[in-house]
């Protein structure tokens, strides 16, 4: 059971400069927690209080939006999770 988790550029320095992490879990939340267990600094980049994702974080599973309730979205072996930051600039 392995899920590929894509880390945005601005967070890769907290994940040993890796773009993709291999994770395990039954849903998005478990896979992300799996990544945080290895790279704890990711937590503050992804979450605000009470384990809620920061408002500017978007999650896609197999390139489909996982919003809302992203963390409980089920995943299976071979799936891909993209963590993405909403962009505001123009």
């Amino acid at each position, binding site marked *: 059971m392995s899920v590929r988790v894509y880390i945005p550029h*601005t967070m890769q320095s907290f994940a040993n400069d890796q773009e993709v992490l291999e994770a395990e879990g039954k849903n998005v939340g478990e896979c992300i927690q799996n990544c945080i267990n290895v790279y704890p600094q990711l937590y503050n980049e992804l979450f605000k209080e009470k384990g809620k994702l920061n408002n500017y974080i978007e999650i896609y599973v197999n*390139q489909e939006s996982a*919003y*809302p309730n992203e963390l409980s979205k089920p995943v299976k072996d071979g799936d891909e999770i993209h963590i993405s930051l*909403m*962009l*505001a*600039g*123009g």
Partner: protein
Amino acid sequence: MLNQEELQRYDRQILLPEIGRQGQEKLKATKALIAGAGGLGSSVALYLAAAGIGGLRLVDHDVVDRSNLNRQVLHWEGDIQTAKVVSAQKKIQSFNPEVSVEPRETIISEETLPQLVEGCHILVDALDNFSTRYVLNKRSLDSQLPLFHGAISRFEGEVTTIIPGRTACLRCRYKGFVPEETFPVIGVAPGIIGNLQACEVIKYIVEAGELLLNRLMRYDGLKQRFTEFSIKPNPYCDHCGQGGS
């Protein structure tokens, strides 16, 4: 009706079966509102003018600052402290005098937008913050006008096309307030994203190809890679879904 100069100017694209003379006439008959005359606004406006859009209404309240010049290619050294819409109008009209350019030096708000969009057929999001984007998004829905969204930061950008009633709107992705910050950016990012927005606008007008409907195209300049994500209308969206009723 296209004049002789226009037939010459647009000859290479009139040759395209997707455009032809009829498509060129449609482009000429279209007026676009470009919200923001910065990095995205510069490239969208320039390439829509090159394609022969009939009218551009440029809206921005800001003046040109030297720190804009790494990316806002319609503004040059001599334009510093000039209103961006005036600076942009000067370049576009010199570039293509057939395009009617209407500068509007004003803040974009719920109060100003109804009048600003009047007479425009499409809306282009070339803004630099979330809060004004949502105001523009709401106006797009209320006026049933297509909205061509682009946004950038660092070496990255995103594009999608919003058709009221058919696609997810910008607000469908809203999860709560995000504080504004000065965003770092390399100039090619708005250049690329603005061009993709212009391409969407042209295809929409001439009814060619496939639009980015419910498709969010993300560009990663560091990896030189495009990734397409599927998005969908949020039934609880407070602009286009039950949350707004």
